[in-house]
């Protein structure tokens, strides 16, 4: 899946930036430091904002494109912030054979974003996930810590309206 670019404005704080600078200073001369620095940065910000990728590149004397290439390669890195409500759709085997693919499509249609993205207002983010251990309720989705089971596409709008 191609990683989409977010339009949500960066809201980093001074404290986060200090943490980031410390993280880079501590690691940057270690061979192969880019990956742990990106992981640490994601822990600090919850995702990898453009501004952060730029700082990492400049401090490590790498091109921005090289750092972005690594960030966009690994599925563990998010380029969009998590929404206020993080929606995870289980695409594990049991849910999938019970039609969770259609549930995902419905969420994508309803929110106007693809899996891995966040709505421009920052309210909802959508991700696919593997088995969450509730196969008896398949197909399943989670919104933050709320679990919804035995879903049919028509449920999607009703569920979302609760959070809108």
């Amino acid at each position, binding site marked *: 899946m191609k990683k989409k670019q977010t339009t949500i404005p960066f809201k980093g704080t001074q404290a986060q930036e200090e943490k980031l600078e410390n993280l880079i200073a501590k690691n940057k001369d270690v061979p192969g430091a880019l990956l742990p620095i990106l992981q640490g940065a994601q822990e600090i910000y919850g995702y990898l904002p453009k501004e952060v990728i730029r700082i990492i590149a400049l401090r490590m004397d790498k091109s921005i*494109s090289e750092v972005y290439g690594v960030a966009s*390669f690994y599925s563990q890195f998010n380029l969009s912030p998590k929404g206020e409500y993080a929606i995870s759709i289980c695409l594990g085997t049991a849910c999938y054979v019970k039609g969770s693919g259609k549930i995902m499509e419905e969420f994508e249609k309803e929110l106007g974003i693809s899996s891995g993205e966040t709505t421009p207002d920052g309210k909802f983010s959508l991700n696919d996930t593997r088995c969450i251990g509730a196969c008896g309720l398949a197909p399943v989705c989670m919104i933050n810590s709320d679990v919804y089971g035995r879903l049919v596409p028509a449920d999607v709008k009703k569920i979302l309206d609760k959070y809108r």
Partner: protein
Amino acid sequence: METVNIKINGRAYSVPKDSTVLEAARYAGVEIPTLCYLKDINEIGACRICLVEVVGARGLVTACVYPVNEGMEIYTNTPKVRESRRMNLELLLSAHNKQCLSCVRSTSCELQKLCHEYGVDETHFRGAMPESSVDESTAFLVRDNSKCILCRRCVAACRNLQEIGAIGTNDRGFDTHIAAAFEKNLADTSCVGCGQCIVACPTGALHEKDDTQRVLDALADPTKHVAICTAPSIRATIGECFDYAPGTDVEGKMVAALKRLGFNGVYDMNLTADLTIVEEATELLERFQNGGVLPMITSCSPGWIKFCEHYFPDMTENLSTCKSPQQMFGAMYKTYYAQKMGIDPKDIFFVSAIPCTAKKFEVTRPDQSAAGVPDVDVAITTRELGRLIKTAGIKFRELPDEKFDAPFDIGSSAGAIFGATGGVMEAALRMAAEVILGKKLEKLDFEDVRGIAGIKRATYKLGDKVVRVAVASGTSNAKKLLNAVRSGEEKVDFIEIMCCPGGCVNGGGQPTQPASVRNTINLREVRAAVLYNDDRNADLRRSHENPAVDIIYKEYLGKPGSHKAHEILHTSYVKRGL
């Protein structure tokens, strides 16, 4: 040299110990095909076209990165090798836009050539095509990823050779593609337009923005006065578009071809290279006298200018304010010449033929319109000029040698060597030395600043004045040198920087040569030799003695560095940052 004994295709050879299989095969007179490999900058074994059999090795090995060892037995042309190469080509084609008939690289495409040689079936694997896009955001370059084979030669040219890294490899698997970070348009990045990615590309995925139609339209318009001038290095390289060996001087035929294309005037940019030297050396001497910003850095190379604006915005005051020879030519043509001949500058269509893609950007810059209209209307690369001549049906190789048109036909050989790294420095030194010393130099050769080394330094004692100079070509070398200057570690008075490694002879607008040539012939050296050969045999070797330059000052500009010269021949810069 330590050697090892190996066998290639059953025959025994002794080859240098640290060779790769690819290099060893070359000693044995065997060319192993490659697509991704570019010597020194892209040795990643990714395309899997150079596969060979090595006795005892598990599976086929990639010759470009596999080292030889004592007793190794290599087979480069077995049925298994050929079948694997064909299969890999067919897999590449399964995701390739196969509209080859009208592709700009048709007949010079390295993929096409291999497919032809291996008799591939282009429909063997049918499936989904990766999503791809065309980036036409810049004035100088087009990237069409539907023709990209992900060899990463462009990324290596940008990141490893030039140390710019405007582009990289984004996403993974089937979605892998080459683009700028955050999927930005190239125009919104720190890309300097050097075009080294274009000459590295084996296919039609990258090419210059083609402006030949604009030239043809102007030539067909009876209301336009259409003139062209050719940069110093074009005479040394355009022959390659017509199957001459690299390093063949075809100045006479080039001029003859341009006259047959119907230009109203065909001129030699060596003239304004001389004019640049006179203005630039005057500026340097002035900065010496008046305590101006030093070191002064040359400003002929628009890729370098954009690099400086992005990466060293604090040093734009160090840049000479002189326009490049291309822009000076257009500016003089649309002011002085237009006035002299009674032509309205608006009716002039001025074309420059240059070895450079960044010049396409330069013509669009602000403060490059001395007559109120752009100094230069279109800048076309050596490759585009070759196509113009070919499609006009002109039989280049059969042309007689002809001469540039007056009054812009006199160029000194100091102007000619502009096309190679160190050339501008040497030309400027010839003038500055004679001005400072107040007498003629017996020996005009400043050999320390010649040659293809990335950074060259020299110190000259001129009377009681010591002048420290440095020359860098390729932006990676420029970065090294300027970092040292910025930190105070290096003390210099005058710096020449060319954006492309080796200077304009190796420019991003020069004819493409396949990796098999690039990896074995030093194009920078053989092409530059043409210019230095011209210089050795020339009568006029001093820019400041060019009689045409003299007339320009007498009739129009007054004296070097005058107010009028500044209005017409100088420009300004912006601080871009990253």
